[in-house]
């Protein structure tokens, strides 16, 4: 499988990365080189093989239903959370207009 410039532009848009027309053009051969190379996976017989998503069988844990059981992942830290925001106002993250 291979991508063309239109597909690259579409992927960039899905990935929320602004790219120029020239950049999209330059990415076509780069991405196709990589995709051609990974295409060799198609030759592997995977019939009856389950896809692996975790290397160690690990049951997801439930934590105790206690507020702020671990203060590191608890609440009440609004100012800390906002401290690194490029723009924060009145205790909220501020962003450009969403609704026209």
């Amino acid at each position, binding site marked *: 499988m291979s991508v063309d410039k239109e597909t*690259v532009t579409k992927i960039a848009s899905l990935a929320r990365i602004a790219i120029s027309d020239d950049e999209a053009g330059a990415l076509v051969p780069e991405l196709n*080189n*990589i995709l051609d190379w990974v295409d060799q996976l198609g030759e*592997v017989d995977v019939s009856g093989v389950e896809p692996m998503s975790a*290397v160690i069988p690990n049951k997801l844990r439930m934590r105790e239903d206690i507020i702020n059981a*671990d203060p590191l992942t608890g609440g009440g*830290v609004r100012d800390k*959370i906002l401290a690194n925001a490029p723009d924060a106002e009145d205790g909220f993250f501020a962003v450009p207009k969403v609704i026209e």
Partner: protein
Amino acid sequence: MMRDLTELGIAAIRDGVAAGEFTAVEVTEAFNANVAAARALNAFIVETPEIALDMAKAVDADRAAGKELGKMAGVPIGMKDLFCTEGTQTTAASTILSGFVPHYESTVSANLWKAGAAMLGKLNLDQFAMGSSNETSAFGNVISPWRIGGGNDAPLAPGGSSGGSSSAVSARLCPAATGTDTGGSIRQPAAFTGITGVKPTYGRCSRWGVVAFASSLDQAGPMAHDVRDCAIMLGSMAGFDPKDTTSLDLPVPDWEAALSSDMRGKKVGIPREYRMDGTDQDILESWDKGIAWLKDAGAQIIDISLPHTQYALPAYYIIAPAEASSNLSRYDGVRYGMREVPEGANLQDMYAATRSAGFGPEVKRRIMIGTYVLSAGFYDAYYTQAQKVRTLISQDFEAAFQKCDVILAPTTPTASFSLGDKSKDPLAMYLNDVFAVPASMAGLPALSVPCGLNKDGLPLGLQIIGNMLDEQSVLNAGLAIEERAGFTARPDKWW
């Protein structure tokens, strides 16, 4: 004259501080001086000499008060800038996180500070740990302290992504450093710079507070001068953490106490598929030496097969970018890091402009690949197929460990190369990790230990891969090689 404390490794510093031969402050001052004098290597993004001194003073005060000292008391280390450190800038070497100062501490770094280690600074790396030569950092390339010499002073790659860590340890700017390994990022740079690096079993070290690249693969581990130092440091890094859903709820063995280079009764597997075309002759010879050394240590050498080896790297380059494209969606210019707002931009425009300005080319390439292989219509052909191949790779190892205790292989297909040699060709760069990636895909513990120099005088590493949770056998086989290789070479100081 007082001896040069920067010659010492973790064990020697810990023991010397405990015995009162020197103080933690003296050790830290010596390493602070080396860090300040080595800016030509560009190994550090942020230097934190005062923080290191404060932490050292606390250790000296504890000793004076007769308190019990931690396992790394008085040992100053470098922290890869992928670990969030409270109050100290953390960037993953990306512009998109410029100015980010975490309000919390990663579990691994917190564990190390609890053990008495001190932070010399934040180490440079490939941007978001994506790279094998440390040429994708927004803070510039890290230079290896090694040179070919004889008039050839071309700057060499320290490996990646933990290139700041490898360069700094090799040049003795710190006795040890943290690394992270997603597809070879501890082992490959360790091999390139003549140091030892360990990637533990997936889940040994908490990922909490580590900037995520590919979550099913990312593992933190130690990089240091020798196997013992790595065993000590890994013991201080590892441990169950309820804040990481994939953290292993198991006790941390005392790897240092159980170190033994006696390989009698152990079987070492030699995977025939790792004899690949294009592998450097020096590498093949070092592998043969490794076989002879482990035999000498009493091991039985057996031939094994890992039939899906050649598919590990292409499968990795689907799975890792897929996970990265998801993980890196959080960098949106809203919550932390930089923001780019073109005139009249709406929210979507701001996301796209911020990500375009903030991510480097290799990061964008991988996000794009990941987005593509996860997109509707291609998901099964690429992502599901790669996950199935990952199962087969894992099964290959399972079968192999029915027959042997550890696997011996080269760490890399070549020694270090000149900066710029491979950076124009992503595929050539990816192939560097061909021997390292299979163990990552299967979540297995593995280390790289220096074994000698190639004909250009550059270090080579040998890799030991062990069964799930069997770091001990990996460390022990590494120690057997270390004792026999007698690797004492070091780079001539030019920086």
